[in-house]
């Protein structure tokens, strides 16, 4: 699992690569901590190379969304694979997020 964070003027791009399971969720939580500490004006999570998510990963997504809402920022998801999207659907996450 790898997390790449790129800050440009207008947005913060968080690229999730690989599998986000309970084994590495703590590591990922640490990796996205700087994003959570930022103003989260416009955060985009790029899921084009994101292969797998479990409930511990869902926790991270929801925590980030809550933080963004609290700060009046925006968090959206880009290029999520259908298998993962179906997990979002089952857990009622889909209406909460903006899918680009």
């Amino acid at each position: 699992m790898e997390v790449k964070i790129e800050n440009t003027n207008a947005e913060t791009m968080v690229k999730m690569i690989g599998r986000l399971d309970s084994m590495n969720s703590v590591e990922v939580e640490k990796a996205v901590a700087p994003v959570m500490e930022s103003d989260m004006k416009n955060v985009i999570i790029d899921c084009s190379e994101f292969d797998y998510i479990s409930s511990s990963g869902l926790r991270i997504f929801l925590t980030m969304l809550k933080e963004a809402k609290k700060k009046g920022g925006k968090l959206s998801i880009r290029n999520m694979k259908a298998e993962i999207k179906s997990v979002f659907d089952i857990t009622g996450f889909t209406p909460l997020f903006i899918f680009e």
Partner: protein
Amino acid sequence: MINRLRHRINKSFSARFSLYIILLVGAVFIITFAVSYHYSYRTIENSARKNAEGLLKNTTLEIESLLVRMEKVVDNLKTVVEKGEISTDSLYSLVADVVKNNDEVIGSAIAFEPGYFKSKGYYFSPFAYRNREEILTKQLGSPDYDYFIMEWYQIPKLLNRNYWTEPYYDEGGADVIMCTYSSIMRDKNGKFIGVFTIDISLSWLSDLVANLKPYENSYSFVIGNGGTYIVHRQSNRILNESIFSISYQEPDPGISRRIGQKMVDGETGEEVIINDGYVAYVFYAPISNTGWSLAMVCPKDDVFVDLKLINRILAGIAIGGLLLIFIFCARIIKNVTLPLRSFSTSAKQIAQGNFNVILPKIKSEDEMLELHDSFEYMQKELVHYINSLESTVSAKEKIESELRIARQIQLGMIPKTFPAFPSRSDLDIYAILYPAKEVGGDLYDFYIDNDKLYFIIGDVSGKGVPASLLMAVTRSLFRSISAYLKSPANIVSSLSSAIAESNDSNMFVTLFLAILDLKTGEINYCNAGHNPPVLLYNNEVSLFPVDPNIPIGLFKEFPYTEQKGNIPSGATLFCYTDGLTEAENETKKLYGEERMLKILQGKEQYTCKEQINTILEDIALHVGDAEQSDDLTILTISTFSSQIGRKIVFKNELSEIGKLSKIINSVCKQMELSSDLSMNLQLALEEAATNVIQYAYDGEKGEIELNISKSGNRLEFIMSDSGVPFNPLKMKDPDVISDVEERPVGGLGIFLIKQLMDEVDYVRLNGKNILTIKKIIKR
């Protein structure tokens, strides 16, 4: 505007050079001018002083000589009176003659002591005076005009000497300013008998002083004994004001008072004053006998008026001259440097590739000609150089493009498509090969024949094209020899002798060659001087035991030894070339075996691709910006015997999730399930396992058992633990409807299992929590 000028000066050599000359000549001008001004100033000041002194002297002399003449007239005539040689009545004609014969004299009297002539009574003073052209006489003394108390009578008598009175205004008489000279008369016993006087109008003095005007705005004045003005251009000051009283009207009274004091004291001198706002020199000198003093005021501007004019003319000449020099210099330099501009244009054209540009013609035989010749030489050399460079470049490009093709061919020889065996659930294999140059001497290869995996990893000595040729040979020989020889040692021996046969350049290859039985995990291998592979199993890393055989290609006959071993299910064999352990950073420090083993520790739970990516990332961290020092090749192999029907045991640690995922993946592969279904199974099993790992053992160490079985189209997973009793199915379903703000984080795991799987049951049996998950496989 100024910027444009500055730009022009910076850009233009002629402008800059001219400016330097102007600055230099200008500096010389200014110095000359300053020195000349200084000395001219001094000279003019001195000559003005001398002139003033001369003028003053002449004027005082003139005044004095007139006064002395007047004195003489009286002094000579008085003896006649003193001796009584003349009758009292004749005295009238005597004084009348005095007035008549001297134009400056306006009146003359002989005043005797009271009752000196008994016949003449108490007052006797014959007096003659000028009334227009007539000369009239009268007796002056009377009770109304008691002349004994007059200044002109009383003071000489008291002083007992001849005396000039202070100038006074004669209101009764001639209505002019005048002064009187009284000469004492004595009898033969020396007794005072009276005075012989003459009155002189001071108008002649005014005229004389008014003419004393060396400069246009200069003026002169005369003060009397007490500093009173006798002659002044402002007539209202005459007799009414003194130099001391006037001083109070001035900003600095001290100077005037000092001058006044010195003049009254009869001194000669000069001062500089500020008079009515302008600076002026004051020269003064006494008029002897009278106690008067003459002063001349000369404004400084007037004194130096000529110097100013000269200065203006000089400045005009200087500026005009500098301008001329500037234009002249700029013209000349422009003409001289004209060829330089042409050269500059030529140089630009040459830079654009036009080597045959025609150079400017130089007629002179100076440095310009030299420059011209150098340019010509440069042109020729450039043409020559570019021509040879072009052929070099095209040759190099050809080699490079050939190398690129060679690289493609070389990389095409080795299997690069992963997953290499998508249909096999019992094998995961991944490899990379990064040549340090376009082509390299590393190789790997593998293929499966009869459920046996034949694989090789090797490293040809040296790098680049020669190594790549030998690499290609070695790989081809591996394929062809292993087709009929089924023992690694035999294959290696054949390889070695085939290469050694025609190895004139004494190159060699280190390699690890093995045949792995995928059904049993049994491995037969032969290592020829290659780095021993690493076995990753059960959270442990160990170097695979290898015999010390020499690299191949050195000798035709060498007894290569063969070894046997076992790769357990779930273990990884990590093969590599020394490009890994000897990867250098910028300070030439090697990556090292120790660091490699540390990174690989526990990574058997990763997929082979993940294992390689992990170590590549760590190598990149070590290498930094340094260039890749050697070819780098890694080949990793993991095997799994079928998981179905087996009991699998996990520790209650989150790190076991990777292992679980691999097992589920392998099961899915074996059953040829879709990736969607595969992911759902992985997700459900992970959630179930995570639940046990996190809560069942309350922080203590424990185990989780997993049984996977298959009946018909149904997959069954039974997960059990001996932790605290806990029925996950009794948990309330999580909120999946609320808005973000109210949505609780967590509680989704069990919900996901229930949603994704077809059947989930819990039972507590024999002190164990037993969770059964079933999924129907739809084909």
